[in-house]
């Protein structure tokens, strides 16, 4: 028995031998520029990192001792722009460089974790790596971290990804992605943020297990000389196979049932158990809470004005369903003198001017009035005099 445990330990050793390996390229010193081949750009080493301006690219030999699955690019100062990650696949012609567009949001500072393993063009052992910058670039590149994981860690991460749940969203009533297999923590963190999510459906694994189980059980029956027509002989094999399918079904049920319960738990945590003013409901955030708190005013007259950001006008229907028979004005309807109530939601461009009127820039929207409730910096309830 001890010998078996020892052998098992030796067998598993390679899985644990190489934990996460990472290489950090820190750009906060002037020497860091040496390995880089810069073209077209102006790169100025500073204490914060490389101050990069202009348009062009910078590449270097990777010289890494480990494979790479993920790269984190950190900017001390960023800008909203689309840059490119560049790499060269070993063995490919020298001039053949692959580009991956990466969107910067312009946060200060900003770290972009990029899961490269999802791209079939990516080579974990790339020999040249770099960045390309568009016209009018002006940012400070602080560091790049290149990370890779061992087989054992990838298997562990795949198991964790099975138990990583999606959140309840508008599409959840039509389909549920189900468990998706990915093999690194960055891919897992980004799992349901892109549609469709990247990764392998775990159904593939289930089907493979069922197929292998079927073959193994049939093989065992044949090896033991159980004739196909021997019903009493084949029964235990059929029951074993059905048992395996049932066990996988139950496992899958526990996984998906837990996801549905996680939706409920989140709703309880963020909506049901919270007092008015702190309620957050799914991706509509505090919209329901705002309308709910405004109901005494919104339902006072038959019509009211509602201003929501472009692209989420359907929120007006949500509000309508809560305030009916009072209804919001359609955007193209004129605001008449009978309208007194304005609900402004996430409209930073609308404010109360010095004359007490609602205004969008210099355009006056309403007669003078007062803000009755301020829900957040860009959402408030306004009543005209």
């Amino acid at each position, binding site marked *: 028995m001890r010998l078996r445990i020892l052998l098992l330990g030796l067998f598993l050793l390679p899985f644990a031998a190489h934990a996460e390996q990472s290489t950090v390229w820190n750009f906060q010193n002037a020497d860091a520029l040496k390995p880089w081949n810069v073209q077209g750009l102006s790169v100025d080493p500073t204490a914060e990192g490389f101050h990069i301006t202009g348009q062009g690219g910078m590449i270097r030999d990777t010289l890494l001792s480990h494979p790479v699955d993920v790269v984190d690019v950190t900017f001390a100062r960023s800008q909203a722009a689309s840059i490119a990650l560049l790499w060269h696949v070993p063995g490919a012609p020298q001039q053949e460089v692959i580009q991956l567009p990466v969107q910067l949001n312009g946060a200060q500072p900003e770290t972009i974790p990029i899961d490269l393993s999802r791209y079939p063009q990516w080579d974990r052992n790339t020999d040249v790596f770099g960045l390309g910058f568009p016209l009018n670039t002006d940012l400070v590149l602080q560091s790049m971290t290149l990370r890779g994981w061992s087989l054992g860690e990838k298997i562990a991460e795949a198991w964790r990804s099975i138990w990583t749940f999606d959140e309840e969203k508008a599409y959840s009533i039509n389909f549920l992605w189900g468990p998706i297999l990915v093999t690194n923590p960055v891919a897992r963190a980004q799992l349901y943020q892109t549609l469709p999510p990247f990764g392998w459906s775990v159904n593939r694994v289930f089907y493979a297990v069922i197929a292998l189980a079927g073959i193994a059980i049939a093989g065992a029956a044949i090896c033991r000389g159980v004739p196909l027509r021997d019903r009493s002989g084949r029964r235990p094999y059929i029951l074993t196979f059905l048992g395996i399918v049932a066990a996988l079904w139950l496992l899958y049920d526990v996984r998906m*049932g837990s*996801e*549905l319960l996680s*939706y409920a738990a989140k*709703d309880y945590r963020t909506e049901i158990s919270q007092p008015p003013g702190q309620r957050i409901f799914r991706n509509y955030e505090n919209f329901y809470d705002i309308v*709910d708190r405004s109901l005494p005013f919104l339902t006072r007259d038959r019509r009211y004005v509602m201003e929501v950001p472009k692209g989420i006008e359907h929120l007006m229907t949500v509000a309508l369903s809560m305030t009916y028979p009072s209804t919001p004005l359609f955007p193209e309807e004129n605001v008449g003198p009978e309208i007194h109530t304005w609900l402004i939601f996430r409209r930073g461009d609308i404010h109360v001017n010095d004359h007490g009127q609602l205004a969008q820039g210099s355009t006056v929207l309403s007669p003078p009035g007062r803000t009755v409730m301020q829900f957040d910096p860009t959402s408030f309830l306004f009543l005209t005099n």
Partner: protein
Amino acid sequence: MILLWLPIGLAIPTLIGWLILTLLEGKTPVLLGIERWVMGLLLGLTLTMYLTFLGHIASLAALSLGGFFSVQLVALAILGGLYLLRRWHLPGIPASPVASPSPRPRTWILIALIALLVWTAVKIAVPGFILMTTPPYFDDTITNWNLRGDVFFVTKNLELRLPTQHPNDLSINSLSSYPPTVPMVKAWLAHLAGRWDSGLVDSVHLVWLLISLALVWTTIRHTASRTWSVIALWLLASLPLYLMQGTNAYADVFLSAHLLAAAILLYHAARAETPQRRLAALRLAAFATALLPFTKNEGLLIYLPTILAVTGGLLLVSVTRKTLTWRQVGIGVAWFVLLILAIGAPWIVFKLAHGMPFGNAKSVSGFTVAWQSNVLFSIAINTFFEGNWLLLFPVFIALLLTRSREAFRTPLAMFTFIFLIVSVGQLPLFLFTGLSTEALMQTGYARGLIHLVPIVVILVTLLVRSLVENEDERCKMQDTRTKE
């Protein structure tokens, strides 16, 4: 406390449903006692709303508390009177069929079954609680089922224009082409409570989910033990998308329950050992089928023709095997024609009279026929590679192939053919018409499967049972022969 209006609101419709089922069964009951109450609740509620709709368009009843209540009282009085009359003429209540014997399973199996039931109860109760304590979230809940119900409640009128329409737009809202049953049920509950409460009006969706589960249970109990019923119930509640829809205010589980009821009654007709019992089951099936057009548009366009086709097949086989005479077939057909005309026709005439489309918010006519790429891929992903149905469809296909005799040549064929006709029939619509977006966007296609999965679960359970118990019985027979 407001939720107490739910059982109160369902009581009279359930009684109406029970009475009409009992009357249709006549001297030969085909339903288990509990099955009659469950179907009574399902069909009685829809029938009550249909009668209210008739009363309303005939200007006899407003969609007010008094309007709903008076229609129910009149229906109850008429059906109750007929029931008492029948009791008077036919003393002695004919006994309902008895459920299949259910020997106590081994202790470990019993524990496993109880664990499955507890897990299933948690999965229904927790999202059910969320449904009743959070505001409506999903699009169709807000813009269709609840908004229309709220409009009926406030105006006490079957409004065909909705407040989501611009005041200058005087057209009929396309959502009004959906049968008004679900919004009317919500309006009825709101009238009882005296106010619109989304928790109360949405709670009825949980009832429809529980009805589906109960009907699966009772159907299995006709031929198999409680163990198999628990397995079937667990299987259905384990399907994530079905559970998701059942614990949200959508109408597809509602439709699935209606389709299931019609299919189960055809199955009972196919299983019946005497012509009288078969005719009784056919009368019940005719009633359930006739209500389909008043559930969702798919009920009229897809499921009514399918059920009629399968019924036609059953009647032909019955005549061929001499289990029914031509005269009895004629009687069966007459019941279908009568009930479908009585229930379906007024709704269809109403739609035609108001120029409402027959599709779901889009007309089914006028589509250009052309190959739609990526649809097959999308269907395969939704069916086999997402979390919607767990392992249901691969297992089902494998069982259809390996247990084809049971699936196609026993009464289970009623379920098999309904599934195949709908699936195969819908496929060209997705593959060759503009409805392809329903498959590509994973909306209409998945909804179609929602309607069918209770039927598939019954098939899977009974086919697996036939596999396991056939082996068991054949083993015993083989052992006996060996000993001899």
